[in-house]
């Protein structure tokens, strides 16, 4: 995973709450077996509307998404994170994220930055009044800056550390494989295995 320290890019105001992962990427795009190329599925239904924010010129190349509360609800599909990343987003700002989405984002180097809803409203107004405004997101100081506006965001310290260092979860866990071996030795015998029962 690439380390993430800070990112500056065009902010995209998405004035919608409950953006579920079926909206972020519809199921029909989930049939692929590759890890890349999901950008065409991002917000596929909404993008068929020419007035949708990502179809408007200053926002088309945006990389900081500013969304309403309850972003990423529903299906566990990590494809939602891949679609955002493949499109070019590095940061999603919302006042509330669904748990699975937040976890998936942290594992893929997409920053899910949690701001107060009042700050999200300020960012929306700024980005709508001055389309194309660049937003600077600094993970070391946990702040978002845009024009004269500075707001802080929350991200849990462990995810922040992993993002800053670009660390891979599996490698981190395998450092503790002796603990896993010990635990496995203590599991009760009655626990099932999937070995076919004749």
């Amino acid at each position, binding site marked *: 995973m690439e380390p993430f320290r800070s990112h500056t890019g065009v902010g995209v105001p998405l004035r919608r709450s409950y953006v579920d992962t079926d909206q972020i990427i*519809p199921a029909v795009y989930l049939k692929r077996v590759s890890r890349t190329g999901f950008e065409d599925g991002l917000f596929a239904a909404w993008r068929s509307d020419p007035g949708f924010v990502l179809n408007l010129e200053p926002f088309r190349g945006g990389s900081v998404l500013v969304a309403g509360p309850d972003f990423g609800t529903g299906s566990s599909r990590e494809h939602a994170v891949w679609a955002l990343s493949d499109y070019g987003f590095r940061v999603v700002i919302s006042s509330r994220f669904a748990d699975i989405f937040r976890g998936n984002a942290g594992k893929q180097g997409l920053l899910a930055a949690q701001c107060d809803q009042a700050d999200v409203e300020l960012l929306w107004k700024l980005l709508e009044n001055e389309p194309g405004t660049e937003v600077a997101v600094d993970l070391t100081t946990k702040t978002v800056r845009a024009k004269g506006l500075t707001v802080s965001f929350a991200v849990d310290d462990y995810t922040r550390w992993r993002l800053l260092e670009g660390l891979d979860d599996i490698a981190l866990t395998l450092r503790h494989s002796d603990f896993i071996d010990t635990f496995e030795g203590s599991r009760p015998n009655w626990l099932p295995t999937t070995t076919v029962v004749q």
Partner: protein
Amino acid sequence: MATQPRTLAEKVWDAHVVRRGSGDEPDLLYIDLHLVHEVTSPQAFDGLRLAGRPVRRPDLTIATEDHNVPTTDIDQPIADLVSRTQVDTLRRNCAEFGVRLHPMGDAEQGIVHVVGPQLGLTQPGMTVVCGDSHTSTHGAFGALAFGIGTSEVEHVLATQTLPLRPFRTLAVTIDGELGTDVTAKDVILAVIARLGTGGAQGYVIEYRGSAIDAMSMEARMTVCNMSIEAGARAGMIAPDDTTFAYLASRPHAPSGAEWDAAVAYWRTLRTDDGAGFDRELVLEADSVGPFVTWGTNPGQGLPLTGSVPDPAAIADESERTAAERALSYMDLTPGTPLREVAVDTVFLGSCTNGRIEDLRAAAEVLRGRTVAGSVRMLVVPGSMRVRAQAESEGLHEVFLNAGAEWRQAGCSMCLGMNPDQLAPGERSASTSNRNFEGRQGKGGRTHLVSPLVAAATAVRGRLSSPDDLDEES
């Protein structure tokens, strides 16, 4: 040493800690059962291959084909080439990494959350994960079961563990007796309407109370299944004699002395007296009636006796905007009685309501009746075993005689990944779990309902409960 009183969720958590995290570091938890399907696993297996890692415990892993599979002509290759590639990829991955797979056409194939419990692989006190948010289903057995993303699928395949941060706990207590024609589905839809789609974010829900105690295992699975629709990571119910009786004859349940040892342990899996929950919600069972959704998230639901709400009456701006968008997408007018909403399609199935009791309940309503001429009804068993059981009871004849379609097992019309989809503008009454925009097919409009409401709606052509049929007959 006296231990602090603990909740069920905390007990299961504590029993699986491989290594406690220090400071901000999450705990590392052992995973007892990993369920795999074709959609969220290909990139995970690819990751293993790239890193040269094996599957650590193929004997704790099981795969089935469900999301992409067609529910007709299953002896033919899958017509959609992209779907076929995904299913073929799962077959290759399972063969290469030594994972047990139940492919399309196999007697044990079905929706992953129907297959695990019916094989007896899901047991009390276990940790169960799957790259699917409806993994919460397995919590009905007192297991800690939750959905994970593909990176986590790879992590579990490689290490049989997951780094996790403790969840908060939420008690949902439902006391009293459910009324006639009121099902587990109505209960959970009412709970979600109370909590809101994000209301249980960060929580593990424990469902308790006399109404839950009285439920069958299949009903409990329906309740736990939809925990995620309130934002919860998991839903759990303490195991009891109902649980043990369900497990006793299952292929992977323990036997002999091991059964006795297991039951002795399982009986300890209850929330201790005096253990505190971070939050509580109480619902009286007799206040719940047949429940349907009117909007585009599962929290937007009302009793069937209600009318389409007026967004203008909603104080919260974000809720109001969401309701306006939902009504526009759903093409509904405020004030319309829900019973007058006509549907084109009825879908009975899914990991929420595709089990034998669901089929029996719907068949009972349909026996001697006919699906309205304007309606197509799909009946899709959750697994091939459920299908076989239904056929041995003659339920398929009830469905076919009523004019419904009797299909093979799979996720089917719950989500638009296989040929069973709504056309744009088409409206459904669906026993599945999500009414998101486009979930059942681009432009499709979904009303979530119980199997009883689904069957009655199929007959009347409008959202209905079995009561409405009696009045008209």
